[in-house]
């Protein structure tokens, strides 16, 4: 969608009034703030073990309690937020950029489209999480592997969305007019196809962010994500699992954090979709 | 000849972005038994909403229950219970709509969709209703009816789909047929065929018809009496010949002037300048005032009333009525 400043302003106003969007925005804003201010908010080193304080229930000194190594769960959750939000953002950006590029290319050059769509279908032949597990396993238990793996899992879905939008845009008459006027393929892609796909792309990327948070948690829970002692919401839960009856707090708070973060992004995505075009499809 | 349908002071509002929008504002009209009434106006004039109100078919979620009175054959339509309303719909009053492409259910066969009415209102069984469906298709002149009846709507052309809609509508021999822009979505040649069909069915079945259109040509050909609507209000009512020969309201004049004529050479087609007012906006005085070529200062101050303007004629333009 190419919008003039006034339309853009109206759209932003509509977003601001949308209830889901507002709630989601507030949730995410608080979490991002907490993540950025982690060194200040977290009173304790998330990795340092202080056996003397193990298994303390939630109290003033330790708002979320401590785990079996005496580590402050609150500090760990806050640092985990850094990791999860960063992974979510990176995945959404990378898959968004590459997916958009591929999608627009596909819509413009049909021969490339035939080949690319088969490859994308092949990548989508397994559930995203499975692909991510496989890739992370191959690449090693690092944050970067998780980002790459998740991006690869979501690039095909994003490419499909952008391709769909670009194909529709191509059918519009002004493309024909541009071509007759001598516009090159590249120009058409950049000036027309891409801007019109911004809406669906933005909505899809928001949901990719949400799925990435959940997926990263699952990956770390399974033990293929960033390895301990680096705190990730997923591995805090998996480490706290064995003690879940006596020290339920270890497992509860990271789970709530994951749910809140995902919920926030989903609300943002819903709001964006309602405002931009309620009929937009989302690929998972 | 008594009145079959009487609409008195109908007002219909629906929810807009910022409050209620009045789509139909204090509209009154009547239809005599056996008559063909045409309602003409631009998109947004409220003509469709008026028609939908008769059978209460507007979107319940966003529309306020209409105020006023709609009397059909002695029944107060707006006060009927849902069950009573359903007994009238399709049986005594039938309606066909503008877009035959989307007005038929894509996953049911033609036979299914026609039989539905027959089984509902006439209690026919599957075999009898199927047979009757074939007869109805032949009545609306669909070739090869026996085979067509088992097909799905997407296999039929627009004109044929509209014929199917008509077949469904007349299946139970309704007393009143409301046709909301039945030809607007069709090619001109098909338009003529459909209108011919409607006329034929009307005389053979003795139906009264309300025909809604924005096309003056269609109205001229089909209607006996015409109601002209603008911005949610009735602005003129007259027998068709009188309306075309000597329109009273400036809007009607504008509409007639805008029809291209074969025997008149023009460099530029006359248009009505401006556009219809925003329905959410309240206008003081005559709604047509801002666009009226002969507007007077009093028009923009006082809201004009609908006044008698001759035998069986009404017009909402005091200056014109006073000095024709």
């Amino acid at each position, binding site marked *: 969608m190419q919008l003039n400043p006034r339309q853009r302003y109206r759209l932003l106003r509509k977003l601001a009034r949308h209830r889901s969007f507002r709630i989601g925005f507030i949730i995410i804003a608080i979490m991002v703030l907490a993540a950025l201010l982690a060194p200040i908010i977290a009173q304790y080193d998330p990795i340092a073990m202080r056996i003397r304080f193990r298994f303390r229930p939630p109290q003033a000194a330790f708002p979320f309690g401590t785990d079996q190594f005496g580590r402050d769960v609150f500090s760990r959750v806050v640092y985990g937020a850094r990791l999860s939000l960063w992974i979510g953002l990176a995945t959404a950006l990378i898959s968004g950029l590459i997916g958009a590029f591929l999608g627009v290319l596909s819509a413009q050059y049909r021969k490339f489209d035939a080949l690319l769509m*088969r*490859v994308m*279908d*092949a990548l989508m*032949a*397994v*559930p*995203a*999480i*499975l692909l991510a*597990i*496989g890739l992370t*396993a*191959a*690449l090693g238990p690092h944050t970067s592997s998780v980002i790459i793996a998740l991006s690869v899992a979501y690039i095909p879905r994003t490419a499909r969305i952008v391709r769909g939008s670009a194909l529709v845009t191509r059918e519009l008459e002004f493309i024909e007019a541009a071509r007759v006027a001598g516009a090159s393929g590249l120009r058409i892609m950049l000036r027309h196809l891409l801007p019109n796909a911004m809406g669906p792309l933005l909505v899809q990327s928001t949901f990719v962010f949400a799925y990435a948070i*959940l997926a990263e*948690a*699952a990956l770390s*829970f*399974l033990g*293929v994500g960033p390895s301990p002692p680096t705190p990730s919401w*997923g591995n805090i*839960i998996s480490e706290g699992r064995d003690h*879940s*009856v006596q020290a339920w707090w270890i*497992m509860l708070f990271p*789970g709530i954090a*994951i*749910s809140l973060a995902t*919920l926030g992004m*989903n*609300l943002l995505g819903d709001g964006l979709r309602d405002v931009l075009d*309620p*009929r937009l499809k989302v690929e*998972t | 000849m008594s009145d079959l349908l009487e609409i008195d002071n109908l007002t219909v509002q629906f929810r807009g972005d910022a409050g209620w929008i009045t789509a139909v504002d204090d509209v009154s009209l009547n239809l005599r038994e056996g008559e063909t009434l045409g309602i003409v106006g631009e998109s947004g004039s409220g003509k469709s909403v008026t028609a939908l109100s008769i*059978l209460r*078919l507007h979107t319940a*979620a966003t529309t306020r229950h209409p105020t006023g009175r709609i009397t059909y054959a002695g029944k107060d339509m707006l006060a009927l219970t*849902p069950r009573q309303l*359903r*007994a*009238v*719909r399709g*049986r005594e009053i*039938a*309606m066909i*709509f503008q877009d035959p492409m*989307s*007005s038929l*259910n*894509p*996953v*049911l066969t033609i036979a299914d969709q026609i039989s539905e*009415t027959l089984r*509902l*209102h006439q209690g026919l069984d599957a075999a009898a209703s199927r047979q009757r469906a074939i007869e109805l298709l032949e009545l609306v002149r669909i070739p090869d009816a026996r085979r067509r009846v088992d097909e*799905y709507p*997407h*296999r039929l052309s627009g004109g044929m789909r509209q014929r199917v809609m008509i077949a*469904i509508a007349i299946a139970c021999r309704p007393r009143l047929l409301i046709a909301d822009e039945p030809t607007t979505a069709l090619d001109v040649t098909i338009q003529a065929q459909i209108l011919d069909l409607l006329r034929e069915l009307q005389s053979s079945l003795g139906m009264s018809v309300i025909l809604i259109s924005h096309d003056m040509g269609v109205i001229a050909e089909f209607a006996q009496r015409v109601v002209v609507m603008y911005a949610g209000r009735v602005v003129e009512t007259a027998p068709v010949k009188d309306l075309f020969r000597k329109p009273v309201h400036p809007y009607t004049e504008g509409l007639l002037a805008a029809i291209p004529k074969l025997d008149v050479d023009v460099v530029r087609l006359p248009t009505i300048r401006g556009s219809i007012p925003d329905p959410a906006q309240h206008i003081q005085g005559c709604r047509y005032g801002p666009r009226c070529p002969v507007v007077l200062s009093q028009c923009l101050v006082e809201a004009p009333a609908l006044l008698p303007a001759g035998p069986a004629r009404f017009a909402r333009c005091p200056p014109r009525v006073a000095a024709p």
Partner: protein
Amino acid sequence: MLRGVIYRLLQAIPVVVIFAVLVFMLLQLLPGDPAVAIAGSEATPEAIDRIRTQLGLDRPLLEQLLSWFNRLAHGDFGKSLILNQSVVSAVVERLPVTLSLAFLSLMITLPAGISLGVLAAYWRNTWLDSFVMVTALLGVSMPSFWLGILSVILFSVTLGWLPPAGYVPITQGLWPWFSALIQPAVVLALFQIGFLARITRSAMLDVLDQDFIRTARAKGVDEWHTITKHAFRNTLIPVVTVTGIIISLLIGGSVVVEQVFALPGIGRLIVQGILARDYPLVQGTMLIFGFSFVMINVLVDIVYMLVDPRVRFG
């Protein structure tokens, strides 16, 4: 329509081939020498060499690829290093578990998701709609493994109603089988239900706005039949297309849920293989997954072609 079916099947072939190539490449992604990665950092040089020749990693890439395809064509999906059995037999052993879980979960997801979506759409903008949508939103936002753990704490540890883990084959009784699977199945289904409800609602809203719904009412059809006969049948069409994705999400989710509930299924197999660096097992299982999914998607597409008369009767 037969032509459509054949075309769809043909479309699947290049996808399967490309997928097989991608899985093959997985081993090449390993940083450094694949043989070292598999054998482990403490392995002796002889062990590494043994692995290298055993897996054919010393031969040129193209030759490896061709022999890979050759083996696949003969149904040989590799041999697990850890389990000392063929990948195929390892998968077949665990198939009933994953299938039971997926089946039960699907039986919960489909009716629940569709009914909630339909209700929310019909009562649009009422409290019911908001309630359903909020619940659906929560469903897609909460991690299933976490819900699983919470569920076990509540239903197994505290209340003692259901077993906390493990699988019971149906041969040992319907209730034992059911009670062991019901927790994982419900936990798995929650995400799917939320997803399906949102999509069904959206599809139903689209259909309810269509003109033919107004036509049905104009004919005097009562509300119940307008919704069930006219609206619902049309809503099912887009829902069918989504079923493939639902199944995909279901199997993906089962990978995690099987871990939480210690179900000896295929998902758990893959995770074990990954953690043990049993790459032949991982590759073989991925391949089986991939082929199955491509087939499932083809089937879903065929069902769609059957259900939509516009496609079936052109």
